């Protein structure tokens, strides 16, 4: 088991007029090889939660175990934790600073105290994973396109070779093509490199397509924690907390309501297509 979160509470600005409970008794287990979709609307506590996973925020109370070790135990090595649990922030391209793309991506591994050859190798590998070609290595990270910037920034975290990759809304502000590219690359990391992924998003479509488990946050609490089909079957409750199921869920539900005898558990367009086609062949 990679990460276990036990009774986690977090309060912003405690004992002031601005006090706000951001996380309320959160219990989650993330297993090796999981692809978790973490969803919730703005202010539900999902960004706060992911910042706990690598120790950037310290919980007000509760515990987090990484590979069985409590990260709040005395003398725990946070620097090592941060290279094991890679966290990609929202709009990560806003954190680029290097004079060249290569230098920027190499920042992470060079903080890990590796040899120059190793830093070089990891940087190349990471840039290769996100599809940045070699002729761009020496360009400034400020003169490439928005989608490329984001991929460079993600490479900056990948270069540290984390075991768990946490991405906070990696597709926010991208066009559909850029969004699909990023998500495909993340999915590839999961399938080919067997990386554990936590994808924070509020797009159900994004999450439904890739995640094997979905965690829904609302008001700092875990509302649902189940596989996509099971979570989306609660689409009425999801709507109540400002979320929605993927569009196909509604289509399948609508079809069933007007008399077609189909299975409504499809969460992606491919599954829906398969179900509808099989229904047609069944009827014929």
């Amino acid at each position, binding site marked *: 088991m990679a990460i276990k979160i036990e009774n986690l509470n977090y309060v912003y600005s405690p004992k002031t007029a601005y006090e706000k409970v951001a996380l309320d008794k959160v219990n989650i287990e993330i297993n090796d090889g999981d692809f978790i979709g973490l969803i919730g609307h703005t202010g539900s506590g999902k960004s706060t939660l992911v910042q706990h996973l690598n120790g950037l925020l310290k919980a007000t109370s509760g515990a987090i175990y990484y590979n069985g070790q409590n990260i709040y135990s005395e003398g725990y090595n946070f620097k090592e934790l941060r290279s094991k649990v*890679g966290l990609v922030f929202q709009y990560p391209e806003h*954190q680029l*600073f290097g004079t060249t793309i290569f230098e920027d991506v190499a920042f992470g591994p060079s903080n890990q105290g590796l040899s120059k050859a190793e830093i070089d190798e990891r940087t190349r590998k990471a840039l290769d994973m996100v599809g940045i070609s070699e002729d761009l290595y020496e360009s400034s990270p400020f003169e490439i396109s928005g989608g490329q910037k984001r991929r460079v920034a993600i490479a900056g*975290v990948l270069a*540290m070779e984390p075991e768990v990759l946490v991405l906070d809304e990696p597709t926010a502000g991208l066009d559909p093509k850029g969004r699909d590219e990023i998500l495909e690359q993340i999915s590839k990391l999961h399938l080919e490199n067997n990386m554990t992924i936590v994808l924070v998003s509020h797009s159900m479509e994004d999450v439904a397509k890739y995640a094997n488990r979905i965690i829904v946050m609302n008001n700092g609490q875990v509302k649902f924690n189940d596989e996509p089909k099971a979570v989306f079957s609660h689409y009425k409750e999801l709507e109540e907390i400002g979320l929605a199921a993927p569009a196909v869920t509604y289509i399948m539900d609508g079809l069933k309501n007007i008399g077609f005898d189909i299975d409504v558990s499809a969460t992606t367009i491919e599954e829906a297509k398969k179900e509808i086609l099989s229904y047609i062949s069944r009827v014929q």
Partner: protein
Amino acid sequence: MIRDITIGQYYPAKSILHSLDPRVKLVGTFLYIISLFIVKHYTAYVLVTIFLLSAITLSKVPLKFIVKGLKQILILLIFTVGFNLFLTKGDPVVEFGFLTITDQGIITALKMGFRLIFLIIGSSLMTYTTTPNQLTDGLENLLAPLNKIKIPVHEIAMMMSIALRFIPILVEETDKIMKAQMARGADFESGNIIQRAKSLIPILVPLFVSAFRRANDLAMAMEARCYRGGKGRTKMKPLKYDKRDMITYFVMITFFILIISTRILF
């Protein structure tokens, strides 16, 4: 972390002091500060204490919050009291070697100490009860006559309010960038001065980029709404004196006259 720093230190509450016109509070604080320089006789100190305590009660700002603000001037306070205590000439009360505490010394030290505390509490009470934007609004209005001698009052006030508005944004941005770089293994705490200065580059470069981006966006947004300086500009919430503002002016002037009269009478 860094987001816990409060600048402008506005304390949100619903009180009479909060709802006063910012001009009244500015003029009132000004009168109050002048009167602190006039006080001499102890009756005046009693007056100021009563005045300040009632203002604090009316403001609904917790006393704990106000005392916390005094921490910043603690060293200055210790120095002022200390110097006055030991260096005032007069009738000696206690002597330790070359240091003597005199009768007059004790009195001046106490008076100076109280004066400083009153000064800080009084002026911070204004910032606790007035949002930075209200303050610049009030200031712009009060300084409007300076327009006649070609001082761009509106532009200065606009710059002030934009600067104030940007402080929390940039603080938050710094916090976010710091965290993002820490997630990539950056270390801001260890190493010698040169290494530490160097470790700031990954924060400062993105921060500058973001500040310029935001400034650009803001300029564009202002232009899109036809902002063209203060000339002929009207306000959605124009400053208007209320009955309670007039009463406050009256109270402040009475207080000021009382303080002056203690100086003349005693």
